[in-house]
């Protein structure tokens, strides 16, 4: 490409500037993103495939994987229902306090994960609000699975709602109103008109919500109590193994989580490209 817009030739100085911006950007991205990602897999296989398989094929690793899947299986559907309900209320009706409600939905994004976990310890911990009552009735929430689930719900609460609200705002409610006037019931309107319109954004939200639910560390580490085989999710198992100097074991579990992250990014990019292609038509 010799000429730019207007037929002006591109000067040597400008081409040099462009090249140096590209090179510097690539260097930064490689150093800060590619190298850490690659190192996870290199460290995991440092002592060979056998050691890798052996450190995953263990009861506590399997328990951590099962627990992580369980927490995500409870958290994601709940936050999907919440996200759809919140988006419906926020974009289809006008009411007082809407801005405040929007701010509350976004709040968990800017709270430190540690503070998020702390909130639940102060509610349900031994010296917490409901602590004595829970103790008397033999219910365990903190240092048990319910605490992990609650902390994860808090952290991932905004993800689905945040994808849906701007989209449904932009789409408007005309199609749904037409469906209603033509005699469709409320549920028919939702499943036949709304859902097909928001399906890609919903999928995108589920993807982000799931990735965070499986990977959350700070909040769950505060409420978990690190009881091996019972309350350690995969990220917590990574931490415990790392602190025991079992580096291959820690990186082996970490590599599974990194694969999940890569898969998330791949599906996310595919969705975005598809969306852009649809928009350009």
């Amino acid at each position, binding site marked *: 490409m010799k000429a730019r817009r207007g037929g002006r030739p591109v000067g040597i100085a400008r081409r040099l500037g462009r090249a140096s911006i590209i090179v510097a950007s690539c260097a930064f991205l490689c150093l800060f993103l590619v190298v850490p990602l690659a190192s996870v897999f290199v460290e995991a296989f440092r002592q060979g495939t056998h050691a890798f398989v052996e450190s995953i094929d263990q009861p506590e690793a399997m328990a951590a994987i099962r627990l992580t899947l369980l927490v995500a299986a409870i958290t994601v559907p709940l936050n999907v229902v*919440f996200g759809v309900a919140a988006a419906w209320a926020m974009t289809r009706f006008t009411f007082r306090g809407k801005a405040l409600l929007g701010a509350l939905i976004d709040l968990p994004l800017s709270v430190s994960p*540690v503070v998020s976990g702390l909130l639940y*310890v102060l509610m349900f911990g031994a010296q917490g609000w409901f602590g004595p009552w829970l103790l008397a009735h033999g219910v365990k929430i903190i240092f048990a699975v319910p605490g992990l689930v609650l902390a994860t719900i808090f952290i991932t609460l905004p993800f689905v709602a945040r994808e849906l609200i701007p989209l449904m705002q932009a789409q408007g409610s005309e199609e749904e*109103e037409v469906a209603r006037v033509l005699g469709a019931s409320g549920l028919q309107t939702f499943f036949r008109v709304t859902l097909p319109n928001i399906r890609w954004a919903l999928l995108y939200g589920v993807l982000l919500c799931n*990735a965070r639910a499986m990977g959350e560390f700070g909040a769950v580490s505060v409420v978990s109590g690190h009881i091996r085989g019972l309350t350690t999710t995969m990220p917590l198992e990574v931490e415990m193994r790392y602190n025991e100097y079992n580096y291959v074991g820690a990186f082996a579990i970490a590599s599974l989580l990194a694969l999940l992250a890569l898969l998330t990014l791949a599906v996310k990019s595919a969705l975005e490209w598809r969306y852009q292609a649809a928009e350009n038509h």
Partner: protein
Amino acid sequence: MRRRVLPGFGLSLGFTVTYLGLIVLLPLAALAWKASEIGLAGLPRLLSSPRTLAAFKLSFGGALLAASINVVVGLMVTWALVRYRFPGRRILDALIDLPFALPTAVAGIALTAIYAPNGWLGHWLVPLGIQVAYAPLGVLVAMVFVGFPFVVRTLQPVLLSLERDVEDAAESLGASRLQTFVKVVLPTLLPTLLTGFALALARAVGEYGSVIFIAGNIPLRSEIAPLLIVQRLDEFDYATAAALGVVMLTFSLVLLLLISMLQRWTRRWAEQSA
């Protein structure tokens, strides 16, 4: 008010408010209740202990510096991704979100492995006297890592929609490329850059998972504020943990308010220039 054609107002709003009340508001009330045991009177004494002060200084100072670095580097990377075409561009673009998607604990141990004295980069840097792992510099590296996507993803749509006519006009009037950038492009991007800065700052201040591994957590030197909360909880000192939590939460809320003001400013700015 317009008659409502669409159903489900009571149901959807009722569910949303109840859910938020149980998951967000009730726990916040518990925090306020526990923190009141220390009270405003106890707060200065708590915050003036040298160890707490050092941790807050590192968390806030490190996050400010990391967000500043992210704004400069983020602007450069976004510019390259939006304005230039080069091989591997789409893959790099997709990789920008890696710090969002990669669990923080994984990022933490990976960064530590690279910068440790025997790591890929550490064994070059340490002989030069640059210690990253187990030092404040490591905290900064982790904070830059987690905050980076916020700046790029905030900036990207704005830079994409920027009209090039104005730049062409400036150049045809004799402005150099640098002058055009500083006097035409930068002022337009200013509100967006500030929003990205605030988002990256909010994320870095509270970050825990990716920082604690590389920090080494040496008291007075490389200990971050969220770690203090974890330590108090391990000692079952809930009141102090709650008070520290309130300080961090207040900072987050102020930033959140600032971000929403900045975003309104950006929208007005865009409307004016349109």
